[in-house]
C-alpha cells in the first residue's frame, strides 16, 4: 500500500490511522488512499471494523491516531444501516412528543429527510439537481410524502441514498447498501451507483458479499485479522473471502432444552382464513387462506413490500390488523382471550425491526435470556437453569467470547447472531426468521443456517424463513410460499420454481 498522495491528488487519504470505537482500537496504522477515478470495495467479516472504517472516513467518528484527509473540492456522504437505525430511533423518540401533544400525523417523510441534508445553496426549497435526477431514476416521486417508517426496506434504502445525495457528494460511502433488499431493488440501486461512477464520481462499497462488488470497481480493500490490506486484484480478494472462515462445529446435537415448552397436540399451528391487509392505498395481502402444520418449515419469498414481513408480524402478534382478521394460532383465533405473552412464549422471532428497536444497555447474554419471556430487556432475575441453557446455546453458536459485552456495542452482525440465539433459547414451537442472515458475513450465514438445520433435526420445529437470497435457505425447509407483490400468494415447489403466473392460484392454496 502506498501511503501519501500522488501528484494527481486524492479523494480521501488515510495516513497511519487507528480507528476507535469507545475504548477499543481497531485496524492500527492503516494507510489508504483513494485517487480520482478509483472505485473501491471493502471486504471483511462481521465485527472486523468495516463500518467503523466507513464512519471514520465519513468524519462521523474521530480516529484514535493518524490523519484522515479529504481531497480539495471533494465531499463525502455515508449511507449505512446505522444511519437508517438512527432515523428510525429518532422517529420512535419523536413518538413520545407526538403522543404527548396529540399530533399523531406528523411522521417523518422522505421529503423532509432529504431537506435536512440539503446544501445551503438550495435552501430555496428546490431539490438539488443530483437528488432530482435520482428521484426520477428510482421513480421515487410518489413516495416522497409517505411516512418514512412505512416504506419497504428497498424504498427506505433509496430514501437514505437520496438524503446522502442532497449534499452533492463526490464520494458515496455505502455500508452494506444491498442488505435485506430484493433483487429488483438491488439491481436498481446497483444501476444507479454504476451511473454515479460513470459520471466521474466515486464509490466505496462496504460489503461482506464478494458477489456484490459492482462492475467498474477497480480496487478492493480486504480487512482480515485486524489489518486492512489492498488486494492484488479483485479476483484474489473474492477468493480470499473463503479463507480465514471460522470452522463450523460438526452438526452434533443442539443445545439441550432445560426449560422446554410442552408442544401441544394441535396440528394446525397457523391458520389464515381469508386474510386481507391494506396499508394506505395498497393491498399487501389479498384474501389469503393458508395453513402451516406442525413440523412444516416454510420458506417465504417475494419482492420487497409483498407482505412477507406482514405475515411474520401477524403471527408474532405485532401487527394489530391480526385482530381485525381471522388469524388462528395454535388453534385459537386472535382476539379470543389469548395474551401476547402466551404467544411470545411459544414463538421465537427475529426481524430487522426487532433489531432496530432493541436498544437496551444490557449484556449480550442477557439479551439471549430475554428470549424466555420474549421481552425487550430483562425484567426479572433469570433462573439458574435458564442461565445454563442460554450459556450452552451461546457456546454452541461460538459466541461465548462476546456474551459479556454490552449489546449496543456489538457490531450489527454480532447483534444479529445474539438475537437469533434469543429466538432459539426457549426452543419455541414455531420459529419466525425474517431475513435472519441480513448483515452477516459468509461464515456467520453458514453458522445460522446450520443452527436452524440442527434445531429442526432434533425438534418437531415449525419454521418460517424469509429471505431474498435462495442460497440462504436451510436444507430443512419443506414448503415454499411465493408472494407476487400484488396481494397474491401461491405455494410453489421451490424458490422461484414457478415462472409462469398463470400457474399461480391467487390467494387460496389448495391442500
Amino acid at each position, binding site marked *: 500500500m502506498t501511503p501519501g498522495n500522488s501528484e494527481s491528488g486524492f479523494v480521501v487519504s488515510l495516513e497511519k490511522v487507528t480507528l476507535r470505537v469507545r475504548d477499543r482500537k481497531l485496524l492500527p496504522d492503516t494507510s489508504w488512499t483513494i485517487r480520482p477515478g478509483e472505485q473501491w470495495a471493502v471486504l471483511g467479516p462481521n465485527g472486523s471494523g468495516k463500518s467503523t472504517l466507513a464512519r471514520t472516513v465519513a468524519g462521523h467518528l474521530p480516529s484514535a491516531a493518524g490523519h484522515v484527509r479529504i481531497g480539495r473540492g471533494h465531499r463525502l456522504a455515508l449511507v449505512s444501516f446505522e444511519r437508517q437505525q438512527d432515523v428510525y430511533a429518532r422517529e420512535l423518540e419523536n413518538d413520545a412528543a407526538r403522543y404527548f401533544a396529540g399530533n399523531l400525523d406528523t411522521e417523518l417523510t422522505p421529503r423532509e429527510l432529504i431537506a435536512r441534508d440539503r446544501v445551503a445553496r438550495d435552501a430555496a426549497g428546490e431539490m438539488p439537481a443530483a437528488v432530482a435526477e435520482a428521484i426520477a431514476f428510482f421513480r421515487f416521486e410518489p413516495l416522497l410524502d409517505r411516512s418514512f417508517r412505512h416504506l419497504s426496506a428497498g424504498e427506505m434504502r433509496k430514501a437514505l441514498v437520496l438524503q446522502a445525495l442532497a449534499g452533492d457528494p463526490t464520494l458515496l460511502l455505502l455500508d452494506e447498501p444491498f442488505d435485506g433488499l430484493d433483487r429488483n431493488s438491488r439491481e436498481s440501486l446497483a444501476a444507479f451507483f454504476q451511473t454515479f461512477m460513470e459520471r466521474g464520481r466515486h464509490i466505496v462499497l462496504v460489503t461482506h458479499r464478494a458477489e456484490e462488488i459492482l462492475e467498474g470497481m477497480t480496487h478492493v480493500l480486504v480487512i482480515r485479522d485486524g489489518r486492512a490490506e489492498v488486494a492484488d486484484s479483485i479476483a484474489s480478494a473474492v477468493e480470499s473471502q473463503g479463507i480465514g472462515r471460522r470452522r463450523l462445529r460438526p452438526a452434533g446435537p443442539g443445545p439441550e432444552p432445560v426449560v422446554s415448552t410442552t408442544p401441544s397436540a394441535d396440528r394446525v399451528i397457523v391458520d389464515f382464513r381469508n386474510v386481507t391487509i391494506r396499508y394506505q392505498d395498497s393491498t399487501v395481502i389479498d384474501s389469503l387462506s393458508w395453513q402451516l402444520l406442525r413440523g412444516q418449515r416454510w420458506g417465504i419469498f417475494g419482492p420487497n413490500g409483498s407482505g412477507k414481513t406482514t405475515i411474520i408480524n401477524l403471527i408474532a402478534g405485532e401487527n*394489530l390488523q391480526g385482530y381485525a382478521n381471522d388469524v388462528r394460532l395454535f388453534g385459537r383465533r386472535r382476539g379470543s382471550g389469548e395474551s401476547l405473552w402466551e404467544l411470545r412464549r411459544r414463538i421465537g422471532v427475529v426481524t430487522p425491526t426487532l433489531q432496530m428497536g432493541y436498544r437496551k444497555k444490557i449484556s449480550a447474554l442477557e439479551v439471549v435470556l430475554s428470549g424466555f419471556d420474549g421481552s425487550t430487556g430483562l425484567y426479572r432475575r433469570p433462573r439458574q437453569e435458564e442461565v445454563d441453557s442460554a450459556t450452552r446455546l451461546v457456546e454452541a453458536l461460538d459466541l461465548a467470547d462476546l456474551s459479556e459485552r454490552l449489546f449496543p456495542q456489538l457490531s450489527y452482525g454480532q447483534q444479529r447472531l445474539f438475537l437469533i440465539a434469543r429466538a432459539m433459547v426457549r426452543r419455541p414451537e414455531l420459529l419466525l426468521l425474517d431475513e435472519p442472515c441480513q448483515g452477516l458475513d459468509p461464515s456467520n450465514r453458514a453458522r445460522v443456517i446450520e443452527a436452524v438445520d440442527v434445531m429442526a433435526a432434533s425438534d418437531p420445529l415449525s419454521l418460517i424463513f424469509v429471505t431474498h437470497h435462495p442460497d440462504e435457505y436451510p436444507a430443512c425447509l419443506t414448503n415454499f410460499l411465493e408472494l407476487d407483490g400484488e396481494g397474491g400468494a401461491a405455494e410453489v415447489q421451490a424458490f422461484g420454481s414457478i415462472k409462469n403466473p398463470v400457474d399461480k392460484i391467487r390467494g387460496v392454496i389448495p391442500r
Partner: protein
Amino acid sequence: MAKMNFGGVEETVVTREEFPLEKARDVLKDETIAVLGYGVQGPAQALNMRDNGFRVIIGQRKDGKSWDKAVKDGWVPGETLFDVEEAAKRGTIIQYLVSDAGQKALWPKVKACLNEGDALYFSHGFSIVFKDQTGVIPPANVDVILVAPKGSGTSVRANFLDGSGINSSFAVFQNATGRAEERTIATGIAIGSGYLFPTTFAHEVHSDLTGERGVLMGALAGIMEAQYQVLRENGHTPSEAFNETVEELTQSLIRLVGQNGMDWMYANCSTTAQRGALDWKPRFKEATLPVFKDLYNSVITGKETEIVLRANSAPDYREKLDAELHTLGGSELWRAGKTVRSLRPENWKK
C-alpha cells in the same frame, strides 16, 4: 399487598407477582371493558388490555382522525368499535379517558348509558373531585374507580411491549358492588402496570395539579427564567446563560438524579458545587415554601379548577392562549435553546 418502606414510612403496593395477569383475567372474565376516547391514554390502555387477552371495545366519535386511527389499530366497526354511547351501553367497565373538558361535556350522555353494577373508571380524579364544578356525579349503583399510570400514553404502550410495565396509582371512590377494589387492581394489571400503589381520587388530583403547576412545569420554568435573566443582565451571552440554566440540567444532571437521587448528586459533585448548593438550598426552599402553600390551597379549594373551566369556555380562549404561548416561544431564552439543541453532537450531520 406488600408493605414497602419509603424512607421510614410504610406504604402498601400491589405487584404483578402477587396479582398476576391470570388472576386479573379471572376477576374480569365476565366483563367487557369499554374505552371511551381514542386520544392519548385511550389507545395505550386499550391496546395493552387487548394484547393481555381482555374483552375490550372502543367508544369514539365517528368520522374523525381518532376513529380512523382506531380502525388502523385493528378495531372493527360494529364489533369492537362503536360510537361513545353505544360502547358505554355495552361495557361493564367504562373507562372514561376523554380530556377533562370532554368529560364535563359528554357526561349527560355517558351517564344515561350506565347500568347498575357497572364500574366507571378514570385515569385522573379531576371530574369526580371537582364534581360540583364539572357536574360529573355518578349514580349510586355503579363502582367509581381510578387507575392512573405514571407515564404518557407512549410509555404505557412501549413499556408493555418491552415486557417491563409502568407504575400506577389506584383508588376506589364508590364501591357499589362490593367488588370495586379487585376490579380496580385487575384493570390496573390489565393495562400493563408493573406495580400499583393506593391513593384517593382527591390525593391523585391534588398532587397532580400541584406537581404540574409546581416543580414539574410552573416552578421550573419560573426559576429558569429568573436565573437566565440575572446571568444576561450581568453580561453573559445567551448560549452561556442557557447552557448553565437548562442544557446541563436536561442533558446530564437530571439523568444522574434519576439514577441515583439528589442526595447522591450532593455527595458526588465537586466541593465548590457542593458547598454552594448546600448553602443555597435552604434559601430557595424558604423563598418558595409560601408559594407552594398558596398553590396547594388554590388547588384543594377548587380555585384552580374554576380558573381552568372558565378559561376553557371563554369565546376568545384560543387567541389568548396562542398569544401567551407565542410570548413564551418567542422569548430569547427558548429561542437560544433551539440553537443550543441544534449544536448537540447527535444533531450534527443529520
